């Protein structure tokens, strides 16, 4: 089977349909200082948090630091999570993504910027880190939706979210007039949202 699940045994499956509620509950309990609940939250989400950090910062050692900082922040601010404003997973990955992006931008990331354009320009689904990615049903569904975007939308969304570049940088990388990349990113994200049936 290709259902590789790099998550420790016993962890709630993100595919079982109830994980959203579970994560919210685990987060709520974490906010009250419940360490075992937080350990379960970690087990259920660490692969996604770490994977996103690796994809953005690229260096695994730095990605571990970003992951650690993110979970610390998640623990510290869990009590401030408001379920009315979004899912627990989205909240937690928003924190992770911000930390990853802050890391690459503040470090000036000389080595990363030197990496060839070609490498960044590869479609998301052929990215090297994706080989090790969790082959979940959800991931396949998302790849399908990404593939249905226009090429420029897919590239703009990929460079912005997974590459950690600003829309101005994305415009330069894709030879788009400044100001156009932000529109492509938004169009692409909206199309993706609608294709994936995310309620708006």
């Amino acid at each position: 089977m290709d259902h590789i699940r790099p998550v420790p045994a016993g962890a709630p499956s993100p595919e079982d349909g109830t994980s959203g509620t579970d994560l919210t509950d685990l987060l709520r309990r974490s906010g009250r200082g419940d360490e075992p609940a937080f350990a379960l939250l970690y087990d259920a989400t660490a692969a996604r948090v770490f994977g996103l950090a690796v994809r953005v910062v690229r260096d695994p050692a730095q990605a571990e630091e970003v992951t650690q900082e993110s979970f610390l922040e998640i623990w510290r601010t869990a009590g401030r999570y408001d379920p009315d404003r979004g899912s627990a997973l989205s909240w937690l990955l928003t924190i992770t993504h911000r930390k990853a992006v802050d890391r690459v931008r503040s470090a000036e990331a000389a080595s990363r910027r030197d990496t060839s354009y070609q490498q960044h320009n590869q479609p998301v689904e052929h990215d090297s880190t994706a080989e090790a990615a969790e082959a979940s049903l959800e991931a396949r569904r998302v790849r399908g939706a990404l593939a249905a975007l226009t090429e420029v939308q897919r590239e703009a969304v990929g460079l912005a979210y997974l590459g950690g570049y600003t829309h101005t940088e994305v415009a330069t990388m894709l030879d788009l007039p400044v100001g156009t990349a932000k529109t492509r990113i938004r169009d692409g994200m909206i199309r993706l949202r609608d294709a994936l049936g995310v309620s708006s």
Partner: protein
Amino acid sequence: MTDVHALSGAYAVDALDDLERAAFERHLVECAECRAEVASLRETAALIAETTAVAPPPELRDRVLAGIATVRPLPPQTPAATVRRHRPRLLLAAAAAVVLVGAGGIVWQEPWADDTSQQVSAVDAVLTAPDAGKASEEFPGGASATVTYSNSLGKAVIETHDMPPPPEGKVYQIWFDQPGKGMVSAGVMPVVADLTLLLAGDASTATAAGITVEPEGGSEEPTTTPIALFEFAGQDA
């Protein structure tokens, strides 16, 4: 307005620079439509992260769990705490005399810090100096900043209008470009939208001033590219 709305996608995936983000966050406070759109696009972004999931090294789990054991979770945000975030903007009337920074409790490190009247008169002296020169910068969203400098007084004053607050955990820091020394801190800017502030350091030797976004507490030297640069022209003896 439509122009600001168009930033929602880039905001949701953290593809705005610090200043654009600050401006958009200010817009979000007033625009329920954009708040809803950003929320839905963040849910979508979280799904993209499904495609990049990778198991972290097992020892990371131990480090994370050992780390959290020593940190106290913050209390939930009560209505009062939510309001406090916007308070600085309600206190603008007092901005001219502000010498203490709100965010992070940064203290303005100048001898006159505890004497507001002295600062106010020094500000007036610079603003009305016969040799005063001005340099201005406009920001997206209508904010602006002006630096007035006087060679004879060796001082400069920054005035901001409608300045969006810096991103959370960050501050605006202002610098003098001093030939031979590089960028020298002229202080951390108090978090108020409309500010008048005397800058620390010798303005007569400086060739320019710049603003950067720095971590709370400020930095020894700029760690980001300036969001604004003010060239001091015509500084002749």
